[in-house]
Each structure stands twice: as structure tokens, then as C-alpha cells.
């Protein structure tokens, strides 16, 4: 912004800036000091200095500056008001030729598009693109995490090698002893266990008949919980049903309980 050298005079008046000399900094908006700046001396001098030596130009009011009158006079003086019918006729001739030869059907280039809002539209579309990208990344991440915790992760991991399986087994150990033994009701009490077991069930259905994976600890537990390999399907079906039932019922129940509770409270308060 300030390619010019600030004079010592100019810099001394730089607002509340910590740096004593603004000339080394790019002096982003040294604005508001200007109004209070006793400009007489600097400007009076500047007229007699060769161009480039007047650093007071570095001061620019951020707000609208008051050159209105000067602009009006300059504009009026500089307007090329000379009437030149000849030049106009040539221009109109050129227009007619272009129109008649079809030159006006040429396609619009970027530099011909002066519609008011193209830039902003571009900006918006960039923002839109970016937010879509971010959203897709987020959702993708969620989906990926869900896959990792759900059926497909362990399935793949189990099929490939045992190394990946800890993700399942780490979450499994605590619930697994309780869940299988207490059979059906247990999952409803402990949603995490239910989910794990359900996940195992889903994985089981996929992996059935593929051998090795079903030898792993988690599935052996599942088999044990079901009470034999033949019963796993039935066990899983019951579990899934239960889980969906629970999901359906719960909200209603809670509401009922909540209202009942509040009613009870009201009754109590009435009694007292």
C-alpha cells in the first residue's frame, strides 16, 4: 500500500501504534489520525517538493474522504464534451456492419461479462462447494466409524487377519460375560452389549460358512451364548427383534413415566 517513503513528519503522528516509526511496516490502514493531523505544514511544503518526497500521502482516511467538490469540478473540466458527429457516425456504421454480418452473435467471454454479481456468485458457489465437501467428509467419517464399530469392520478384519479385531474385542470383554448368560433381557438393560451382540450377529450371518473367522473368540462367545452353533440364528433373530421392539417402545414409555412422575409431583404439592 505504501510504496512511498514516509517522512519523519508523517510518522510522528501515527495513532496509538506501538511502533514509533510506521515506515518499515506496510502500514495497513493508518487511517484515523488523519483528521486530526495538522496538515498545513506538510501539505504546504509538499507543493514545493519533487514528487515522491511527500510522504503524507500515506495517510488515508478509511471513511469516505471529502474530495467531492474537487471531483465534480475535475469531472466537469475533463469530460470530453466535444461534439463529433463524424466519429459517432463511424461508430454507428461499424455497429451496423457488425450487426449485419452476425458479429453480434459471438459468444460472451469472461471479460465481457459485467453483470453486477458474478464475483459474488462465484464466491457463494465456492462456499457451497466447500461446505458440501466438509459435510461429505464429516458424514463419511461418521459412516466409516459406524462401519468400524458395526458389522462390516470385524467381518473384514476377521477375514483378513486377527490384528484388526481388537476394535471389537476391546469393547466386547466387559459385556460379553453378562450378555450371553443372561440371554434376552440383558441386552435391553445394557444397550452397548446389545449392540455388540447384534453386530456379532450381523457379522455371523455374513461369515457363516466361511470358516476361520468363526473360530475367533467373539464368535465362540456368541455361539456359547446362543447355546450351540445351530441356535445362533434363532438367538440372533430374537435379539434383533428385541432390540427393535425396545427402540419402538422406549420413547413412549419414557413419556408415560415422565408425565406420571410430574402428575405425582403435582399431586404431592397439592396435598401439601
Amino acid at each position, binding site marked *: 500500500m505504501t510504496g512511498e517513503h514516509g517522512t519523519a513528519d508523517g510518522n510522528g503522528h501515527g495513532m496509538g501504534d506501538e511502533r514509533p516509526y510506521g515506515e518499515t511496516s506496510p502500514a495497513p490502514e493508518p487511517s484515523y489520525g488523519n483528521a486530526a493531523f495538522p496538515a498545513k505544514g506538510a501539505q504546504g511544503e509538499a507543493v514545493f517538493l519533487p514528487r515522491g518526497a511527500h510522504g503524507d500521502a500515506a495517510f488515508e482516511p478509511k471513511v469516505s474522504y471529502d474530495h467531492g*467538490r*474537487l471531483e465534480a469540478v475535475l469531472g466537469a473540466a475533463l469530460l470530453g464534451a466535444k461534439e463529433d458527429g463524424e466519429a459517432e457516425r463511424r461508430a454507428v456504421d461499424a455497429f451496423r456492419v457488425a450487426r449485419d454480418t452476425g458479429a453480434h452473435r459471438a459468444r460472451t467471454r469472461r471479460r465481457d461479462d459485467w453483470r453486477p454479481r458474478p464475483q459474488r456468485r462465484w464466491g457463494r458457489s465456492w462456499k457451497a462447494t466447500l461446505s458440501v465437501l466438509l459435510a461429505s467428509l464429516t458424514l463419511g467419517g461418521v459412516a466409516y466409524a459406524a462401519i468400524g464399530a458395526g458389522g462390516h469392520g470385524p467381518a473384514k478384519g476377521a477375514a483378513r487377519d486377527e490384528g484388526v479385531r481388537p476394535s471389537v474385542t476391546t469393547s466386547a470383554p466387559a459385556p460379553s460375560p453378562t450378555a450371553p448368560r443372561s440371554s434376552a433381557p440383558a441386552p435391553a438393560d445394557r444397550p452397548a452389549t446389545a449392540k455388540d451382540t447384534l453386530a456379532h450377529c450381523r457379522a455371523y450371518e455374513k461369515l457363516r460358512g466361511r470358516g476361520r473367522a468363526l473360530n475367533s473368540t467373539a464368535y465362540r462367545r456368541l455361539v456359547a451364548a446362543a447355546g450351540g452353533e445351530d441356535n445362533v440364528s434363532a438367538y440372533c433373530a430374537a435379539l434383533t427383534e428385541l432390540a427393535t421392539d425396545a427402540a419402538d417402545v422406549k420413547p413412549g414409555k419414557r413419556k408415560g413415566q415422565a408425565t406420571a412422575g410430574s402428575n405425582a409431583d403435582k399431586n404431592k404439592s397439592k396435598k401439601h
Partner: protein
Amino acid sequence: MGQGGEPRRAQAYDGELGAAVARAQEGDEAAFAVAYRLVQPGLLGYLRGLVGDDAEDVASDAWLEIARDLGRFRGDGAGFRGWSATIARHRALDHLRRQKVRPRSSALEQDMLDLPGPHSTHDQALESLSTEYALDLVRALPRDQAEAVLLRVVVGLDGPAAARVLGKRPGAVRTAAYRGLKRLAQLVGAESVTDERPRTLGEST
């Protein structure tokens, strides 16, 4: 420059100009003549600042191109002024390259500093600003400042449009215009233009 307010000349004609351009794009040559008359004075003033006495020739070249490419243009009246100024500027720069002449001579400046003469007041100095003198003043400015001032004051472009014509950032153009105007104010002998004179609303931009 951009936010402060549109140059007033711009606002007065933009609606009419936009309508004329639209009709011209549909093939109405009378409408094209109307657009010409609305735009040409500003364009010529700008070109005078760039190429001096050759402005008429350069403007004529520019209008040939404007007439030819009118079908490509998209935008309103303000856009048309920006678009045509861009074309004029390219023609002017071509012209300068061909001539290998700088748009301003440094000899001008020295002469001009002596010129103001015995204007007793700022107002007097402004009122008596002749075209020649105003032109000399502007051409004494560094080129970027002169162009920024001319596009704003004469062509009537707002900040972003002027920046697009010049191929620069709006901030840079705003700065250049401000410095240019400030320098001009000094040269005219109007030290107080910037800060002290309270202005009526109608006068300030």
C-alpha cells in the same frame, strides 16, 4: 471509493444507458447512437489523460471494437461503462506501445507548479479550472493515480469496476485514487479540501 458512494455522473445515466445498450444488442442502431453519446464524453476524457491529443483517434478505434463486440457484452449501464473503458484502455495502451511515448512527460509537472497563479481562494481556483489545466494536473500524477482518478471522476466508475478495468485489486485502486485526488487538491491550492471544509450533503459523494 467503492462503498462511499457512486460517482454521481454514473447514477444519472445508468438506467438510460442500460436500456439503450439492451436495445442496441437487439439491433437498434439508434439506441447504439444513444449509448455512444452517453459514454463517449467520459471515455474521451479518460483517454485524454492517457494519450493526450491522440485521444480522439484512440477513442475512434475503441468504438469500432465496442461496436463489433457489443453482442458479447453482458451487463447493465454501469457495466457497459466499465466494459467500454476496458476496451478503450487496451487501445490506448496499444497506442502508447506503438508510439513508445510515455503517457506523461516530467517536464509538465514543473511548468504546472508555477501555473496556479494568484487565485485568492480555493473556490476561485476550482471554479476557474480549465480543461487544459485540469488535464495537465492529472497527467502530472503517477500513471496509476491518474488512471484511478480519471476512471472515478470522468468515466464515473465505482471502485470495483475501476479495479477491474485496471486489472488491480480494489484496495490498490482506492488508494491510488485517494492519493491522486489529494495531490490534485494540493496542486490546485486547496489544502483544506480534505479535512476542514464542512460540506453540504449534496456536494459530497
